[in-house]
């Protein structure tokens, strides 16, 4: 499912006018895991990507239940979005021709596999900046649907 222009123009890291987003994954038994993420962008118009900086539980969950939700929350700018769909970590070493719902692993890794060089976290204050931006791969979510989390219409479909 293609995201619209407003979404694509605003889905970026916080230093470029975006926001911290939150990724929810679940174990196969339904235990959710929700984590804030700074290194975030769109990849093409149907995928969202997040740097995998050794997200331990996220990796375990996606290995057994490859599905996720990314919530984008910037009420001041009218962004009340949740994107849901198949999700996996495309890790360094993956076959570059591996196709994840239309995203080639090699393309994803070339574009977002070295986030620190492409988009360094220069806006992040020293006391919360990671000591080193070590990246194991790219968390990739194929957008199957989008819904609003806006409190009075929570769950209403956007795409």
């Amino acid at each position, binding site marked *: 499912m293609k995201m619209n222009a407003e979404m694509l123009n605003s889905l970026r890291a916080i230093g470029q006018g975006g926001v911290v987003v939150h990724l929810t994954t679940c174990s196969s038994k339904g235990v959710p895991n929700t984590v804030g993420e700074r290194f975030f962008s769109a990849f093409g118009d149907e995928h969202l990507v997040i740097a995998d900086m050794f997200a331990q539980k996220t990796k375990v969950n996606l290995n057994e239940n490859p599905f*996720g939700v990314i919530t984008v929350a910037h009420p001041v700018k009218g962004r009340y979005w949740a994107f849901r769909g198949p999700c996996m970590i495309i890790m360094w070493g993956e076959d570059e021709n591996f196709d994840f719902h239309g995203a080639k692993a090699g393309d994803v890794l070339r574009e977002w596999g070295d986030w620190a060089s492409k988009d360094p976290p220069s806006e992040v204050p020293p006391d*919360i900046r990671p000591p080193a931006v070590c990246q194991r791969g790219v968390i990739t979510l194929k957008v199957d649907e989008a819904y609003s*989390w806006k409190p009075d219409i929570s769950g209403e479909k956007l795409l």
Partner: protein
Amino acid sequence: MAILSPRMKGWLERFGCHIGTATKSGFPTTIVVEQAAVEGDSVVSFDLTDAQVNHIKDNMQENPYVALAPHAIASIRAAYQFKGAATLSGNTLKVDVKEIYCTKPGPEAALRLDTLPQEHVIKFEESRWRDVGPPK
């Protein structure tokens, strides 16, 4: 029982949370609630709208374990995740927090905090973040 630190309580009450829920088989739904109240050491309470209740009530009935992550544009400063059993009564969702994790990217990701003595958690927070709570 997990014990929330004053810094954790400050973030939760000021900005609320992204609340991760799921079916028993692991199909996730996340809502965002922009304010919360902390009761005692470990219970976080949210007032939901009717739409939010309808959005998650089926998940709550079959699988009441939820995950909470602090909301807000500046929430990268609040690198916590809380997990626990939720009870939905009318429009009130109460979460009894059982697990607390640090979610700071890198080597401390997934570090469990609720198993540490409270004084160690306070020292951990003081050594990691210059602020003692959320922005005003």
